[in-house]
């Protein structure tokens, strides 16, 4: 299990407007592409250097491919990263202010303290 890699996906997609749109419209394809092309990029480094060992497990890949933010919370993905990206994906569909943000919280209502560990 790699909370770090989940976070890396959320972080790198969130900061790229084109990837945000691709993740909204074709999540499964985007996740597969990202895992092949981007998962091993060392971010704060010269291009051309890469890691060799990072990959999702099946549960993580499926959670991302299905936009399952509840599962991501359970897996310990950083809640700020998940929330920020998912607001970018879905807030545009709101019919009233904060509609998506509130329903996002409501879908997590079955979690009680302590929440899943987010340490990486």
């Amino acid at each position, binding site marked *: 299990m790699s909370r*770090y890699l989940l*976070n*890396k996906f959320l*972080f790198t997609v*969130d*900061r790229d*407007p084109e990837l945000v749109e691709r993740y909204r419209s074709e999540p499964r394809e985007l996740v597969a592409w990202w895992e092949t092309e981007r998962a091993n990029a*060392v*971010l*704060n480094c010269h291009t051309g250097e890469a890691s060799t060992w990072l990959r999702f497990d099946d549960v993580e890949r499926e959670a991302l491919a299905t936009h399952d933010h509840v599962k991501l*919370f359970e897996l310990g993905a*950083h*809640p*700020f*990263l*998940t*929330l*920020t990206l998912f*607001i*970018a994906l879905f*807030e545009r569909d709101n019919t009233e*202010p*904060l509609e998506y*943000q*509130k329903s*996002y*919280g*409501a879908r*997590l*209502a*079955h*979690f009680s*303290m*302590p*929440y899943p560990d*987010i*340490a*990486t």
Partner: protein
Amino acid sequence: MASIVAVIASTHHPFYYRASTATGEDRPPFADEWTRKILAFRETLTRARPDVLVMVGSDHFHQLWLDNMPQFLVGKAPHYDANWYNEEREFGLPRMLLTGQEDLSGHILRAGLDAGFDLAFSNELRIDHSITCPIITLRPEADLPIVPIYTNIFAPPLPQPKRFVQLGQSIRDIVESWPSHLRVAVIGTGHLSLELGGPRQFGPHGPDPEFDRRAVEWIANGDLDECLREVTLDSLHSPGNATHGFMDFMLMMGVAGAGVKADYVDTLDLFHTMEAYFTWYPNGAPTA
């Protein structure tokens, strides 16, 4: 030596900019009261006539990332670009360019390292809303040079709360030993109880109003003893999953000094969070 003419601690609500500039139907019902409170708070800085701002905040996974995460970092650069694409997207924050005060950055780094804080540094730092929100609320002209200081309240493992307090106490001593005639304000922003990405987010109030009430009392009274007795890295999970940002308030209590009551205290109960504003005048309140 330099003088610290104001110590300011506040929340940094990224929606303030949009709420305060919205008009007509887009203007939320709480915007007028919020703006009034911010203008009064701003006056507490303006009256102190600062030349330089030391700005304490926390990067929200913008430039600082898990492959290379500093606990405490001081910016040392002639300029700082500010705000990021996702802050523009979600909060409508404007792009900004701030000037740096490199001499004070260098002094804080050298003296901080010598005082036992292994501070990281950055010569090219793009700052985020933890620092630009207080610029927008307190000094919207953005005309004063800054020294940004980032703390990690976000990516565990985090430093202990007492370490934030100690860093604040050291920042006070270090700035006051800066060989300069300039007037410095130290401004830091954090959170009271806050939930982000969890079941208690975006409620009608902050997730834990009782924590907020006690926290405001600790800060207003400079009650570091009680605060440090009550607050641990574990305890901060209870009021809300992003409440570790309260440690930036604790840092600012360290700057202000143990037992020193704030000269100005105000709060605003909003949806999602309690906003809180504090100002101390270490050399006495400025006369008009």
